[in-house]
C-alpha cells in the first residue's frame, strides 16, 4: 500500500494554482476564463471534489457586502477597527466592492442564500457596526457546485500531488513548483509563468485540547504548507503574531455562536448564565474577554440557547448540524446534550494562522500579489484580514485574473536544475532510513510544544524556550525522521510545514514588543498597546537563510476613521451595571 516509486516528470503551464479548496478553484477558473487558450493547472494534495475548509459546505457568508444593507466604505471601516487599525485598506476595499458580484455568480452556480418573503437576501447583523451575515440554507452544495464549474471549464486538475517547494528563477521571478505524489512519492516539476498559492490556513499548528491530532478547528489537511513554501521562496509574511484563536464547543471543533445562533438570540454566557461580552463577532478583543471569563471563577463559558423557543432551536440545529460540521448533532447526542434544556460548554481553540478570522498571512496587495514577482496568494493564507469563504472566492478571482495578465507578458523564468535534485534529496531523506522517528511523533511533539509555550498570554521567557525546543525537534526531523510509505511521506512533509510555522509564530511574536489584537497578541512583558512604536505591520522573511522581521507602515487609509470610532472594538465587556 502506498508503495514508494522512483520517478520524475515535468510539465509546464501559464498559471499554476496550488490548492484546490476555496480560493484555488476560483482562481483557476478566472485565470482560464481570462485566456481560454492558456494552460492552467490546479494542483491539490487530496482531491478537489471535497478538499479544503469547505469540504462539507459552509453555513453562510460572514462578510457579505450587499447593496441596501452595507456599503464597501462601511465594511472597510469595520474591518479596520476590528483589527486595531493595522490594515492596508486597499485590498479590503476592493474585496468589499467586488464581493457582491461573486455572490451573484455563486447564486448562478445554484448555491442558494437565505432570502426573505420579498425575495431579498436576508442579511443578519453580527458585527459591531454593520450587517453582513448571510445564511446559506443549502451550503452543503457549495463544493459540488464549484467542482461542476471546473469540469465545465475543462481545467487540468492534478489530484494527489503535494507541492513541496516553489522554484524561483535566477532573476528572482517565480519559475514554478516541485510536487510529490502522495500515493507513490513520484516527483513532478511544474514550470509556470505565474503561481497562485491557495493552501489554506495553518490549522494543525496547536494541538486541540482533546489530544486528537486531527480534531482541529481548520480542516486538518491545512497544515500550513503555503506559509512554508512562501517563506522559502523569499516572500514576506505579514503580522504572523496575530494568531487565530476561536471560541468553540468544548472538545468539538464546531464554531459556537456568533454567525449562526447569534442572530436568533443565542449568546455566550458564563456559569451564571449571564452575558459578559457585548458583541459575539470573533475579534481578538472578544477572545480576550472569553479567555478572562474562562480563567475567572465565572468559567467555564457556555453557548446559551435554552431561553429560545423550541422551533427557533430546531431552525438553528438545521444549519449547525447539517452544513459546515455535520457530525455536530452526533457529538451532542453522544453526550446527551440538548440545546433546549441546557447550556453547552465552550472552550477556546488551539492557535493557528488564518486570515479568514484574523489578520496574518503571506503579504499581498490589492492584486493578490506577494513580494515575489509572479507569485500570488489568496484565501486563508493571504494577508487580507477577516476574509472568510467569500474573501477566498473574491480574492481568488482577483489573483486568477491578475496572474493570467502577468503570465501573458512574460516567458518562463530560468532556474537552476540543481534545485530540483536538492529538493528530491530533502523530501526523500526519511524514506532512506531503516530506523528512526515516525512523522506523527515529530508532529505531536512540535504541536505539544506550541501549546505549552506559544499559546497566549505570550511570555518572553517561554517563547525563548520554545525556540530552543523547536531547534531540537528540527534536528530530529532532518536527521532522524523515517517513513515507510508515500502516505507517511506526505505526513512528514506536513510535519516540516508545521514546524516552520511554529518557528515563524515564535519569531513574529517576539518581534512585536507590545500587546495588540486582544488575546491574539497578548504579551505579559509588554501588556499595553503602543501605537507610537508599533502602529505598523510586521513582515517576516528569509534573509541570508535566517528569519528576519521588519516594520512596514500602514498604507494611507482609503476610508477615514474618526478618532471616536477607533476603539469601538475595545469595549467588549458588558459593564457591571448592565
Amino acid at each position, binding site marked *: *500500500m502506498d508503495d514508494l516509486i522512483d520517478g520524475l516528470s515535468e510539465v509546464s503551464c501559464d498559471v499554476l494554482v496550488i490548492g484546490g479548496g476555496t480560493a484555488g478553484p476560483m482562481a483557476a477558473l478566472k485565470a482560464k476564463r481570462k485566456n481560454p487558450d492558456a494552460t492552467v493547472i490546479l494542483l491539490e494534495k*487530496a*482531491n478537489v*471534489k*471535497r*478538499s*479544503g475548509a469547505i*469540504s*462539507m459546505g459552509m453555513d453562510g457568508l460572514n462578510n457579505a457586502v450587499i447593496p441596501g444593507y452595507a456599503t464597501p466604505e462601511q465594511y472597510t471601516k469595520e474591518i479596520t477597527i476590528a483589527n486595531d487599525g493595522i490594515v492596508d485598506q486597499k485590498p479590503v476595499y476592493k474585496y468589499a466592492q467586488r464581493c457582491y458580484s461573486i455572490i451573484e455568480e455563486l447564486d448562478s452556480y445554484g448555491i442558494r442564500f437565505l432570502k426573505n418573503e420579498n425575495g431579498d437576501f436576508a442579511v443578519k447583523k453580527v458585527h459591531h457596526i454593520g450587517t453582513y451575515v448571510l445564511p446559506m440554507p443549502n451550503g*452543503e452544495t457549495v463544493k459540488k457546485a464549484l467542482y461542476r464549474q471546473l469540469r465545465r471549464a475543462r481545467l487540468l486538475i492534478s489530484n*494527489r500531488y503535494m507541492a513541496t517547494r516553489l522554484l524561483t528563477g535566477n532573476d528572482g521571478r517565480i519559475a514554478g513548483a516541485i510536487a510529490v505524489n*502522495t*500515493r507513490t512519492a513520484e516527483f513532478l516539476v511544474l514550470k509556470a509563468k505565474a503561481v497562485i498559492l491557495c493552501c489554506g490556513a495553518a490549522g494543525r499548528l496547536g494541538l486541540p485540547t*482533546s*489530544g*486528537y*491530532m*486531527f*480534531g*482541529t478547528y481548520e*480542516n*486538518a*489537511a491545512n497544515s500550513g504548507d503555503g506559509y512554508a513554501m512562501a517563506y522559502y521562496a523569499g516572500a514576506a509574511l505579514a503580522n504572523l503574531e496575530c494568531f487565530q484563536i476561536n471560541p468553540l464547543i468544548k*472538545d*468539538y471543533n464546531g464554531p459556537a455562536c456568533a454567525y449562526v445562533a447569534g442572530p436568533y438570540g443565542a449568546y455566550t454566557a458564563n456559569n451564571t448564565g449571564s452575558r459578559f461580552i457585548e458583541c459575539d463577532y470573533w475579534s481578538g478583543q472578544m477572545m480576550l474577554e472569553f479567555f478572562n471569563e474562562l480563567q475567572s471563577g465565572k468559567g467555564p463559558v457556555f453557548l446559551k440557547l435554552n431561553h429560545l423557543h423550541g422551533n427557533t432551536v430546531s431552525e438553528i440545529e438545521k444549519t449547525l448540524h447539517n452544513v459546515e*460540521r*455535520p*457530525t455536530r448533532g*452526533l*457529538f451532542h447526542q*453522544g*453526550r446527551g446534550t440538548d440545546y433546549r434544556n441546557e447550556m453547552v460548554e465552550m472552550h477556546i481553540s488551539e492557535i493557528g494562522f488564518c486570515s479568514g478570522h484574523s489578520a496574518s498571512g503571506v503579504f499581498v496587495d490589492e492584486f493578490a500579489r506577494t513580494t515575489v514577482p509572479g507569485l500570488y496568494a489568496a484565501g486563508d493564507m493571504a494577508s487580507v484580514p477577516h476574509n472568510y469563504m467569500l474573501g477566498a472566492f473574491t480574492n481568488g478571482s482577483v489573483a486568477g485574473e491578475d496572474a493570467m495578465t502577468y503570465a501573458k507578458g512574460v516567458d518562463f523564468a530560468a532556474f537552476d536544475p540543481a534545485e530540483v535534485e536538492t529538493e528530491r534529496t530533502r523530501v526523500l531523506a526519511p524514506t532512506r532510513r531503516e*530506523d*528512526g*522517528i*515516525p512523522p506523527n511523533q515529530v508532529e505531536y511533539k512540535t504541536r505539544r510544544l506550541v501549546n505549552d509555550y506559544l499559546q497566549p498570554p505570550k511570555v518572553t521567557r517561554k517563547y525563548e524556550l520554545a525556540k530552543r525546543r523547536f531547534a531540537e525537534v528540527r534536528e530530529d526531523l532532518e536527521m532522524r525522521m523515517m517513513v515507510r510509505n508515500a*502516505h507517511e511521506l*506526505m*505526513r512528514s512533509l506536513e510535519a516540516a510545514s508545521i514546524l516552520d510555522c511554529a518557528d515563524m509564530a515564535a519569531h513574529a511574536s517576539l518581534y512585536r514588543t507590545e500587546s495588540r489584537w486582544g488575546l491574539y497578541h497578548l504579551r505579559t512583558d509588554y501588556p499595553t498597546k503602543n501605537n507610537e512604536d508599533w502602529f505598523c505591520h510586521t513582515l517576516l522573511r528569509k534573509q541570508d537563510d535566517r528569519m528576519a522581521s521588519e516594520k512596514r507602515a500602514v498604507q494611507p487609509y482609503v476610508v477615514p476613521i474618526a478618532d471616536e470610532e477607533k476603539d469601538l472594538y475595545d469595549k467588549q465587556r458588558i459593564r457591571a451595571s448592565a
Partner: protein
Amino acid sequence: MPLATTQTSVPVVVNEAKCIADKGCTVCVDVCPLDVLRISDMSNKAYMAYDECWYCMPCEADCPTGAVTVNIPYLLR
C-alpha cells in the same frame, strides 16, 4: 529506536456487506481530504487505514450504498 504498533479505535466504520469496493467503487477513498481510507487487499472492501480523521463526513455522505458511518473519535466523545 525500533517501532511499536499501538492500538487505536478508528472513527470510520465500513459495512462490508453494503460496500461495493470489490466492484471497482472508490468514492469514499477519493473524497477523503486527509486520504485515510484504502481498499483492503484481502477483503477488497474499504477500510480506515490511518487514524487521522477530521470526521467531516464526505465519505459517509457520498457513499452510493450507505456503507460508511463516521463516528466521533473516542478522544473527543
